[in-house]
């Protein structure tokens, strides 16, 4: 019996102590008509050796391609130390630190994480994480509605330069709460939101404006102008950012005259492997005055009975286990282990390391763009880019991507999936993991694929 330590004599002694004849008798309160007789859909047990062989075969099936897809999940080097420490039993098999005195490891680590995220974003308050970047945006929209008490319209402007999956998740999650999500188109030439295009909303009641940086196309948005526009129109400014880009790009807390009100994003680039999309983690930071509207767990520093400093879960009055139907969110479990990894990852990189990673990503992307331009390909958008670029292929991007994959190169994300006008545009990403030779391999695979499809 895997993982069950009971010997026959244990069972006998335990049943005696209980005063029951058999283990079966312990289930006597369950109506017998409901009892199931075996699980035919579950295969028989396997030994660890057998499962190991199965899983190695399965993992081996998924060819290790040269990956140039980004689109919300980014391939970075993760120091070996990160997951070796994060998967230590004391982190891996602990739960939410309800008993603070016996959980100072996790609690101090989260406090350090909150500090790092606050410094990265330039906003003073951070929670202990949300599920992922997309659901964090949904939570931020809900939070903005709670925080902006002056606004009655529950109207949130959502540029279409925001990741389409983030927009979809936000719709799914806030859809039943009477919130009016209004999509704002981006400028087709620059690939970013033209502030002038928001003029139709001026003077109306706008609760919040979502501002991606860089946006889904890797293009830098005019964050100062957008933030100022939001504030001028009584709206909250919600940033959605790539945390690695913040090593180079202005912190959301410094956007415009007053800074963004809250910022969320996908934490994956900070130490989580691609891993088919998860587990990642969403981060969220905000201004001090909104902290009690923030969803999710928060760790605070305090003192113990002897006056020694230590860490506890705090602001629990916001949470569902206290507030129940009046909670700021139903979130309970978050992404603790991935946050553990991210904290170690950020500590290992440090300020200069993170800057080098971001700078190398950006330069590598620029280098590939130059190579592609030399081959006659065009960049779809004129706006400045971080580490992604939308390339116009003059051929169906979905087909080109498939052909490239057959040759072992994952060429990018076909933008036509979400926007029929961009059927011939491929969104590629180059991180610090790619060498000059990789870029050349990309160009070759792309040219071959395009010519076979055209």
């Amino acid at each position, binding site marked *: 019996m*895997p*993982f069950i*330590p*009971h010997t026959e004599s244990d069972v006998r002694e335990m049943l005696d*102590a209980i*005063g029951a004849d058999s283990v079966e008798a*312990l289930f006597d*309160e369950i109506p017998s008509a409901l009892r*199931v007789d*075996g699980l*035919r859909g579950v295969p028989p*047990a*396997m030994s660890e050796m057998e499962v190991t062989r199965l*899983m190695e075969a399965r993992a081996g*099936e*998924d*060819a290790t391609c040269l990956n140039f897809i980004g689109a919300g*999940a980014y391939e970075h*080097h993760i120091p070996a*130390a990160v997951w070796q420490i994060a998967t230590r039993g*004391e*982190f*891996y*098999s602990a*739960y*939410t630190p309800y*008993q603070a*005195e*016996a959980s100072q*490891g996790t609690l101090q680590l989260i406090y350090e994480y909150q*500090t790092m995220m606050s410094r990265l974003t330039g906003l003073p308050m951070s929670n202990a994480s949300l599920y992922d970047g997309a*659901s964090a945006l949904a939570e931020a929209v809900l939070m903005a509605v709670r925080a902006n008490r002056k606004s009655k319209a529950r109207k949130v402007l959502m540029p279409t330069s925001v990741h389409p999956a983030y927009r979809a998740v936000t*719709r*799914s999650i806030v859809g*039943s*709460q009477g919130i009016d999500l209004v999509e704002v188109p981006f400028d087709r030439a620059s690939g970013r939101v033209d502030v002038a295009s928001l003029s139709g909303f001026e003077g109306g009641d706008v609760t919040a404006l979502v501002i991606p940086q860089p946006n889904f196309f890797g293009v830098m948005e005019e964050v100062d102008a957008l933030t100022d526009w939001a504030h001028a129109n009584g709206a909250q400014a919600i940033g959605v950012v790539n945390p690695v880009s*913040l090593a180079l*790009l202005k912190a959301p807390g410094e956007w415009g005259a007053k800074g963004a009100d809250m910022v969320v994003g996908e934490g994956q680039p900070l130490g989580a492997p*691609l*891993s*088919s*999309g*998860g*587990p990642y983690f969403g981060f969220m930071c905000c201004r001090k005055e909104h902290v009690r509207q923030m969803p999710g767990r928060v760790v*605070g520093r*305090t*003192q113990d*009975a002897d006056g020694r400093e230590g860490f*506890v879960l*705090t602001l629990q009055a916001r949470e*569902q286990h206290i507030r129940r139907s009046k909670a700021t969110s139903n979130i309970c479990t978050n992404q603790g*282990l*991935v946050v553990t990894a991210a904290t170690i990852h950020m500590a290992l990189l*440090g300020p200069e390391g993170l*800057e080098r990673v971001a700078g190398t990503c950006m*330069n590598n992307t620029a280098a590939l763009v130059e190579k592609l331009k030399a081959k006659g390909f065009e960049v779809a958008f004129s706006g400045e880019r971080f580490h992604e670029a939308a390339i116009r292929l003059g051929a169906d991007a979905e087909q080109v991507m*498939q052909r490239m*994959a057959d040759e072992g190169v*994952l060429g990018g994300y076909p933008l036509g999936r979400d926007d029929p006008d961009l059927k011939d545009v491929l969104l590629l990403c180059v991180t*610090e993991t790619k060498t000059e030779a990789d870029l050349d391999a990309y160009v070759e695979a792309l040219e071959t694929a395009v010519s076979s499809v055209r």
Partner: protein
Amino acid sequence: MLIFELSRPGRRATSQAPLAAPAAPAVPERFRRGSRVPLPEVSELDVVRHYTRLSQKNFSIDTHFYPLGSCTMKYNPRASNTLAMLPGFLRRHPYAPDQASQGFMACMYELQEMLMDVTGMKRVSLTPMAGAQGEFAGVAMIRAYHRSRGDEARTEIIVPDAAHGTNPATATMCGYTVREIPTDADGDVNMEALKEAVGPTTAGIMLTNPSTVGVFERRIKEIAEVVHDAGGLLYYDGANLNAILGKVRPGDMGFDVIHMNLHKTFSTPHGGGGPGAGAVGVSERLRPFVPVPVVDKQGDAYRWLTDKDLPESIGRLSAFAGNAGVLLRAYVYMRLLGREGMPRVADFSTLNANYVMARLKAKGFDLAFPNRRATHEFIVTLRRQAKENGVTAMDVAKRLLDYGFHAPTTYFPLLVPECLLLEPTETESKETLDAFVEAMGQILDEARNDPDTVKGAPYTQPNRRFDEVRAAKELDVAWSGSIREASVG
């Protein structure tokens, strides 16, 4: 000492970033960050030593018995970790095309199938990233169902007063009003109150069975009839699925939708607070509404179903396909257990709970529901000790830490005063349970003879009891020191 306090300007773990500083990237002035991010500047050894030592300050399953009720803190197989972290799985980009993803997708498809069998449901979606998101998905599907029938009058979700806090919070997030109904003295739902509560405004009821008070809801079929007759649906909170795995299936009890906490029943790690995974399963009538994506099999090939295939889906809940790495761990665990192992989980988690309950009763503890079988967990109430000795459930919890045991869940469910909810799980041995019972017995003696010792606990941890009021009032959630001037002793 914080990692920031170890920081010194210019110190670096140099192997971890590109060795050559990149040429200044072309960031226009208006987008550029003003000054370097003030992250800690430390060496690789600093980081390894700091976080290794921090980890040692945690209680965890791998180091301590952790009978935290409702959380199912059982052994997390190390193989699940190794196998979910095979390079082929870690490297797969979520947008990798299907032809480069068949191995991963095969695991997900089979996991869906196994979970359907275990729960008796007709379709499973793996995408919710935690129990609470699974709950959200479930209630959103109930809403989508009524809407699809044009039944817009159903505005209420019924929730027992003993429910997890996530239940009412979720119902609210989905735009429902919450209607609480009381629990009987013996732990079952009060049927009279339920019958009064149901009606044309009833969208559904959220139940846990075994319930949060640690007993099996015996009249579940009757409840299902009452709710279904009123046109409502039944939502199953899977937090306690461990107790009945392979014994009874929510689908057979009449539930229409269920979420499963894979990090509880299927032993994926709790990770200091996640990641979890909250897969949902649905009955036939809710099949069209499941969140996307789900994996389908056509011939020998696996493919993703999206909202193009399932146009009535409640949509996406995560950017990609949920906590894939957690799902792989659950898959490994289920293959290790197999069909034979599933009912044994229920058998031995139930045996352990009833054994500890019987022995604590014999030691003089009061049970919240003394006339009921324990399921995989049960409740002790310290009401008498609080009154007689001034020793509360919290005091006993803290004192247990000194004896080397993690505390049970305290003050939940709210309806039982001074309660401890204990869940030993099936992976703990009789010897460990006996040692725990002895410690509880000693604490009970202390409560009678030396209550101040109990009230002052813990004494053996890195810290004594914390000032939580100060934490909330003088809020300090991020270190404000400067790494440039930090001084280290």
